[in-house]
């Protein structure tokens, strides 16, 4: 299914149905197709290596946004975060999916840039628990 013709066919179906993200698992391979407003769908890289330590990780696919489009400031204010708190967003079309704090603690520097295309498991922040 990775030949260009199949991909183009899938992309056409996605566009026709307004699908913005498509994930496929085939054996031990994992593919995701992301439709972008001005660009053709792209096949993304294989999954990230297993994480070590406390990191917030992307639980979806999209462009990294540090602040909500309706809010002028980033979600990570003074560095202290609570388990389950929204720290950033992954935007795909109109959809915003949260990047959540895995535990209470203090947030470290961002490990990805604003606007970066991230996928499942990609690290976004390091968290120092406590």
């Amino acid at each position, binding site marked *: 299914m990775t030949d260009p013709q199949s991909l183009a066919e899938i992309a056409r179906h996605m566009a026709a149905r*307004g*699908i*913005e*993200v498509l994930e496929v698992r085939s054996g031990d391979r994992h593919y995701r197709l992301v439709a972008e407003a001005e660009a053709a769908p792209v096949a993304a890289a294989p999954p990230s290596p297993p994480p070590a330590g406390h990191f917030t990780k992307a*639980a979806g696919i999209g462009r990294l946004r540090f602040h*909500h*489009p*309706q*809010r*002028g400031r980033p*979600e990570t204010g003074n560095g202290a975060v*609570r388990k*389950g*708190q*929204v720290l950033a*967003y992954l*935007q*795909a*079309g*109109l*959809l*915003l*999916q*949260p990047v*959540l704090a895995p535990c209470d603690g203090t947030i470290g520097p961002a490990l990805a840039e604003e606007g970066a295309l991230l996928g499942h498991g990609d690290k976004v922040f390091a968290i120092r628990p406590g």
Partner: protein
Amino acid sequence: MTGPAMIEILAATPLSSVQDLGRSGVRRYGIGVSGAMDPMALSAANLLLGNERGAAGIEITASPLRLRFLADTAFSLCGADGAATLDGLPLPPFWAMAARAGQELSVRAPRAGMRAYLAVAGGIDVPVVMGSRSTDLKTGFGGHEGRGLAAGDRLPIGTPAAPPRIPEGGFGVAPPAGMPLSEADTTEVRVIRAAQYGRFPEAAHETFWSTAWTLRPDSNRMGFRLAGPALIPVERVELLSHGILPGVVQVPPAGEPMIQLNDANTCGGYPKMGVVIGADLWRLGQLRLGGGLRFAEATREEALAARAANEAYLAGVSRASRLARRV
């Protein structure tokens, strides 16, 4: 046998009320439309949960609201950003979230925009009166006991066709373009000329289109009074009472325009300068008291294109919602 699922209001002001997309077909009895002042936000809130877009929700108007969910459910908040928290955990605006029985939702008065909308999976299940669950605050029927909300009120929740699967942490959508982002934002709405436009001199037209009007503090769901220069017709205009609609911009004899809105009387007789296009009424719903407002002239074709653009946004919300809920 248990009763319907409920939410309990812990704190509210009477400015907040149960609203859907309003009552139609009963103007001939003198009954106004009522309904959400920002129908885009209420529709988006419903679509995030897989509800019908016109399900009843709570319109939270520029004031705090706290409530407790008495059953496991899912909810969403759209419109002005009330910096909501669920059991203390901050929530973004235009966001859907799962709630467990006993959890407490708190919404604050927004710093930008005017109204936030709370939707719950299955909708607020107050009785339908004349085709709508909206509260007619002027006459006192519909919604919850025909009035604004108060601490101690218990509102029934409908049973959703399929309980929405909300992923951990919830999900949201980007707000529609034009959602006010700061208190200082000036709102612009598009206006089609109305019957008495030509009865005003050219200088009044110029003033109407170029002025940054200010929303007077005595404005409400019935109508907006605007502060600014006076618009005086060439000759005094006397009209017989006729049907009017939300969005009609009237000019009373004193010359300052007023915009009739959802809870307005169904008939009026002041000269009409223009009518705010249907697609921009939601922007008025987010205009703050004291906020700035400008009018831009539109044609019928532009009004229809704007409607289509709003529909496209809501279709996008629906797609994003289905993707997030994996349906």
